[in-house]
């Protein structure tokens, strides 16, 4: 389905990033299911998911944000997070625990970028309604998904063995995954907005006035 929506809109870089992110999510789910079936530890999969999710989100912001100055910060942020994730997973958790700390940091960073993007929209002089753009829907997907799962993932490291928590984990995680997919579907359905030139009309009027006065 997503591929069909994506077809013919390959030129939109942010859309391409989200498409690859969705494909990765599907693959990750499949691998997670497989590891669960063969009773293997999936902590490395969680860590990899956190890192790749942050990579996709960072890439999205890199293309979506206006050029200066935060856009330049995004690659640096990604590099620092990469180092932090490696230290957290290999040295602190020793590849044997859920990477709650890294997920918490990732969520806060992305939520801050979401807020920054929304503030830009507030300050901007755009004549388009903000909800008529693809990027806005992706941003609110990130914002709602990461806000909703922040507490869940932060608590998961210590509570994952608790049966009651596991049930809550599955419920909350599934609900927010469904919300994420619905919102991303809406984003994918958004039509690209044609760029209008507001000066064209004024110029035409000037020409008419000029002609009238000359004759």
């Amino acid at each position: 389905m997503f591929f069909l929506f994506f077809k013919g809109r390959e030129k939109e870089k942010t859309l391409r990033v989200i498409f690859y992110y969705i494909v990765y999510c599907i693959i990750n789910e499949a691998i997670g299911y497989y590891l669960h079936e063969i009773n293997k530890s999936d902590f490395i999969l969680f860590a990899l998911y956190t890192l790749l999710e942050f990579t996709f989100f960072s890439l999205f912001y890199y293309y979506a944000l206006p050029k200066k100055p935060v856009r330049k910060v995004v690659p640096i942020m990604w590099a620092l997070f990469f180092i932090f994730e490696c230290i957290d997973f290999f040295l602190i958790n020793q590849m044997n625990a859920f990477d709650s700390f890294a997920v918490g940091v990732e969520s806060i960073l992305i939520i801050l970028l979401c807020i920054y993007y929304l503030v830009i929209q507030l300050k901007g002089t755009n004549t388009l309604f903000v909800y008529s753009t693809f990027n806005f829907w992706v941003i609110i997907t990130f914002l709602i998904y990461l806000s909703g799962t922040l507490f869940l993932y932060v608590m998961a490291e210590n509570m994952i063995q608790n049966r009651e928590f596991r049930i809550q984990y599955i419920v909350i995680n599934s609900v927010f995954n469904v919300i994420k997919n619905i919102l991303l579907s809406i984003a994918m359905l958004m039509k690209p907005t044609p760029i209008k030139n507001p000066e064209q009309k004024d110029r035409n009027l000037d020409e008419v006035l000029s002609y009238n006065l000359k004759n």
Partner: protein
Amino acid sequence: MQMYFLQASGNTFGLSNVLIFGTIGMCVMAITLVSVVVFHQRRVIKFNKQLQKIEEEKQQMLLKASINFQEEERQRIAADLHDDAGPLLATARLYLNENLIHQEPAVQLQSIFSAKQIIDDTIQLIRNISHSLMPPTLKNFGLESAIKDLFEKINGSGVINASARFHDTRDRLTEEQELLVFRILQELVTNIIKHSSAGFIHLTQNVQGNFSYFRIHHDGKGILQEEFEKLNYDSVGLGLKNIVSRIKVLKGSISFDIDSSQTYYKVTIEIPREPGNK
């Protein structure tokens, strides 16, 4: 910290509450933020659209004023030609017809002389119409001479003292710009004479950077920028609308103010210079 404490004490109900309320709280925060952005942006866009509409209405009014001005000019020329030139030429034709009927040389000479007089008057009339459309001084000698010529005629009335000083005449404006500036100044001076009861009018011209400046000082009852904007939006006041539309064509600006001593009113026109006009 609370989480570790709750876990150590085995209080899973408390942990569930932390998780549920934390999740709901974060979601509410996110949704509130998005709602604020959406509603604020909707208000801003609505406001911008209103501004745009007002601007469009203003443009429309200027365009109408420009068209009305043209129509009035055409009607005036048509009236001049029909009421003055038409009867004069018809009379001249009558005299020449007389020549065909009366063969006496004395009568013929008299009617030819009368016809010549009438044709001379007609030529003068057409010349006057032509000059009102495009002042010959402006065309042949430029804006400074045209303004001085206009001011001499005003001074001739003895009611008002008009003077002009051009500080920088090294580079002239283009012919089209000069005509537009002349018409603007002419309209302003006419308004001052008609409405302000001024004793003097003084025009100063100068160049600064890429702009030419024209400033009219007068000691009558003038208007300020606010009043000018108001009059410009009113349906009356064709003259002011013509000034604004000409200023717009020139891509310049006009400002109305009063000097610090509250004695003289000032009208300043700023015109961007087009490069390469000598």
